[in-house]
């Protein structure tokens, strides 16, 4: 079977999808772990992962249910409608998605100035605009607590395009509590595959924001931030990508996780670190 967009693509253990709500309900019957990460009026953004490392591919599973087109979106999402929903539901979902894509494209092509770009980004944060070219779906759930601050920051002239909240999570997951486990969380689901008897998990992350600022304000921001002891900043020229200023150590990492089979092993288990680039 030839599949537009996915055909010939690398095979992954997880994918981001946007599905009609009825399709998501049906997705729970498929041999994958779905995690709902965003909901709009018509579409649900879902991360799905296979249940065992290296033993299946989501694409192969979706191919079995596939009917229709599967274009790769401009953002970081794949957009697939499964054949599990009825033709009528699928066509309605698909048409709504296409209408949103056309409208998003029209909005972004009409932008002529920096203030218009800011207003569009604020519209996206408020949910008035479905997606942006840099984020092909509504905002992530973790962004909600930051929303008011982000809108104010954008009004000030900083176009925010990404980041993460500063949070730390530590927990133990037991298979004895399996019925209470949220298997829609793909991290938990994957971990139970590797640690069927339960596991200890830690996830620590720094706060991060990335975005754009007009050049004439950047030096003031650098001066301001250089007096702060709680944050690092990295500034680059958009046009040339050259680094204009940084006090961020080369080996800086924004997140780290560790997982161990027992509490005895926890301290000696090495952290897995994550960097942005």
């Amino acid at each position, binding site marked *: 079977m030839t599949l537009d967009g996915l055909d010939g693509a690398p095979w992954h253990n997880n994918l981001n999808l946007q599905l009609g709500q009825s399709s998501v309900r049906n997705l729970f019957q498929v041999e994958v772990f779905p995690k709902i990460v965003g909901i709009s009026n018509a579409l649900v953004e879902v991360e799905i992962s296979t249940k065992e490392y290296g033993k299946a591919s989501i694409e192969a599973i979706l191919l079995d249910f596939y009917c229709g087109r599967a274009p790769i979106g401009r953002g970081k999402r794949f957009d697939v409608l499964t054949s599990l929903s009825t033709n009528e539901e699928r066509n309605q979902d698909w048409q709504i998605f296409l209408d949103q894509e056309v409208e998003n494209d029209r909005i972004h092509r009409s*932008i002529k100035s920096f203030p218009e770009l800011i207003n569009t980004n604020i519209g996206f944060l408020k949910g008035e605009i479905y997606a942006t070219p840099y984020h092909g779906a509504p905002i992530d759930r973790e962004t909600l607590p930051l929303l008011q*601050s982000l809108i104010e*920051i954008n009004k000030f002239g900083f176009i925010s395009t990404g980041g993460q909240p500063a949070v730390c999570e530590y927990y133990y997951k037991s298979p004895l509590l399996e019925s209470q486990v949220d298997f829609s969380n793909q991290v938990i689901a994957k971990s139970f595959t590797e640690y069927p008897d339960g596991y200890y998990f830690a996830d620590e992350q720094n706060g991060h924001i990335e*975005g754009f600022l007009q050049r004439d304000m*950047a030096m003031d921001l650098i001066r301001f931030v250089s007096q702060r002891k*709680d*944050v690092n900043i*990295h500034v680059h*020229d958009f046009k040339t990508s050259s680094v*204009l200023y940084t006090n961020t150590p080369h080996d800086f990492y924004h997140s780290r996780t560790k997982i161990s089979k027992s509490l005895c092993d926890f301290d000696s288990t090495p952290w897995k670190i994550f960097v942005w680039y």
Partner: protein
Amino acid sequence: MVLVEDGTMAVDIPDAYKDYPRIIKILDDCVGINMYTKTFGEGSPESVLLDFSKGRSYLSTG
């Protein structure tokens, strides 16, 4: 797109906007900012930017 270590995709903004040359032209006059808190689970870069935006008197005196 840039693949980071956890397998997720960090968005390459110039690539994301490549179909929108007017937006690229607007951003050509901008700098890209990445700001991080230094301690896991503490602080927020958003609050730093809010302090900066409200502290415009700092700009006039600094």
